[in-house]
């Protein structure tokens, strides 16, 4: 009894992004089925998404894909922030998880026709020899030192091979710049919520942001556009010097020494004020990406780097007065199952 609508599987449903994409797709009339996969329960309320609990490496994916006959997989579960897990977890989730996913999607008889991967501009690194705007084709210059960067590079190289071997699957890789949003905890957002914001003495890098809404919109765009394939940078227009970011956010700088910065940060991370190591290079050299490829494909942004920052700052101001405005949601398996499957629930036609 399969209908004609799209059947979509989302990995990392418990992450902010997974949940938000599911919410956005739920309101889509063309989307018939949404299956969410994660090792943890969702953190946002979902109407009709079916949640499946998996281990971190998504080993049940092959079975799940066959059983649900999904035509689209949105891989939103990768860790792009070192503070979200140790090296082990990053390796399991990003590298091994993606390998399992690619195996399932590329298996003989697989029903999947579209694969959307949420990657990060961390794949470009940040260093003194970098161009100011990386295009999707510009090779990385700086060596990858952190586990999260290495895992993303591994994932993208597996993806390249996957694309070559599986021409029947439309593969879209979206590389997102530093995300800012009032509702999401990101490395730079965290840096801007501390009483003093970190700044490396003598460096004033140009930073490019992408607003949280544009992240979800870009992922939904990639799901919708059935002719879109390839690698795309996603970031707001323009770059802002970090000193100006601090000025706009009304933060005084906490100056870090330009040499042995990591060493100076070690005691801070002991007391929970650590910064992800991949951020240190970013705060030294900055990073920019050329976003024209996605614009040419027809995507339009609601935010530039500047307006993403402004919205973030406004959101912080509101939070400072009224506290968290999004009440915490708790996933209860039997409640969710009741609403989805009980014959007592009347579904409007």
């Amino acid at each position, binding site marked *: 009894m399969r209908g004609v609508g799209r059947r979509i599987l989302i990995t990392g449903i418990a992450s902010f992004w997974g949940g938000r994409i599911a919410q956005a797709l739920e309101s889509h009339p063309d989307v018939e089925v949404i299956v969410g996969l994660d090792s943890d329960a969702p953190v946002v309320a979902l109407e009709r998404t079916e949640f499946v609990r998996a281990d971190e490496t998504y080993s049940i994916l092959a079975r799940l894909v066959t059983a649900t006959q999904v035509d689209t997989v949105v891989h939103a579960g990768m860790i792009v922030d070192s503070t979200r897990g140790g090296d082990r977890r990053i390796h399991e989730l990003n590298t091994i998880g993606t390998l399992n996913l690619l195996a399932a999607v590329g298996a003989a008889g697989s029903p999947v026709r579209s694969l959307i991967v949420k990657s990060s501009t961390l794949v470009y690194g940040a260093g003194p020899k970098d161009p*100011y705007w990386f295009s999707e084709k510009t090779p990385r210059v700086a060596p990858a030192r952190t586990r999260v960067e290495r895992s993303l590079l591994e994932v993208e190289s597996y993806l390249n091979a996957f694309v070559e071997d599986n021409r029947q699957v439309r593969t879209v890789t979206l590389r997102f710049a530093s995300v800012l949003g009032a509702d999401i905890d990101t490395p730079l957002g965290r840096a801007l919520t501390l009483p003093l914001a970190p700044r490396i003495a003598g460096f004033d890098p140009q930073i490019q942001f992408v607003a949280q809404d544009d992240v979800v919109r870009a992922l939904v765009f990639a799901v919708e556009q059935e002719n879109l394939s390839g690698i795309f940078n996603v970031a707001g227009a323009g770059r802002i010097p970090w000193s100006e970011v601090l000025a706009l956010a009304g933060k005084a700088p906490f100056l870090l020494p330009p040499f042995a910065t990591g060493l100076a940060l070690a005691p801070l991370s002991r007391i929970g004020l650590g910064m992800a190591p991949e951020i240190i290079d970013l705060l030294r050299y900055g990073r920019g990406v050329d976003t024209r490829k996605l614009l040419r494909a027809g995507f339009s942004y609601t935010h530039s780097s500047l307006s993403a920052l402004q919205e973030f700052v406004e959101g912080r101001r509101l939070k400072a007065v009224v506290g968290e405005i999004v009440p915490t949601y708790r996933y209860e398996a039997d409640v969710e199952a009741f609403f989805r499957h009980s014959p007592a629930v009347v579904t409007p036609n």
Partner: protein
Amino acid sequence: MPQGRSIEQTTHGALLPLRPAANPPEPEPDGRVTDIDQWGRSAKARALIARLYGPLYKHWFRAEWEGLEKIPAVGGALLVANHAGAIPVDAPLIMHGIEQELDRPVYGLADYFFRGFPGVGTAWARGGGVTAHPDNAYRLLHDEGQLALVFPEGTKATGKVYSQRYKLRRFGRGGFVDIAMRAGVPIVPIVVIGSEEAMPMLAKSATLARLLGVPYVPLTANMLLLGPLGLLGYFPAKIRFRVLDPITFDVPPDQERYPRSQVFDEAEKIRQAMQVEIYDLLRHRRSVWFG
């Protein structure tokens, strides 16, 4: 800023308000608090530098130009010049000169080396310095139609000792020709004399350079006279610039790559033309100090 996001929309983790897209990339200025552009250059910083540099340019070096009209008043062009002096004075002088005389910004493409130094990198960027990456050069020249200045000899030229003065080094791998071809812009060669005598390098230490991770550690005549201050104190040599005829290439722009041989030939032709002009200027120079 997009309007109309109400608090109701974000409570109870409700559907994300997927707003219709605003008009694509909004123009930046409103809301910004500095005038730092996308390359890190600041017009205000430039004006400050001009105030400090003006007297040096005018009275100390008494810079003089020939053929300034050959630099295009609009559109992109790659300015190519010879490089000299342990701490080269030619780059800031050319940038200052063209900005003053033609009222056009000049972006100086240079080795990434500066960017890694605290303070130096930032100041350099504010003044119009840009890391010499092909992507950067292409964007400046092709997409933005700016003037970009490049020294194809690189640190091989500034790191040469006084006895080698005015002998042009190899022009890198000809990357500057490749970029100009790709961007479809002319190359405008500029030759400079006087820069070698402003800070002559007598000797250099390869060991110290390796230890410090810099291209060379110079011992300059200025340092002998002034001590470490000599790194900043230039001799008042008369500086002359001559702009040569712009060179356009008869190739289609935006090609994946251009024939290596053609790129090398063109680079070598430009190098020889510049060398000839340098000798010509030197032939007519009566005095290092008075021109």
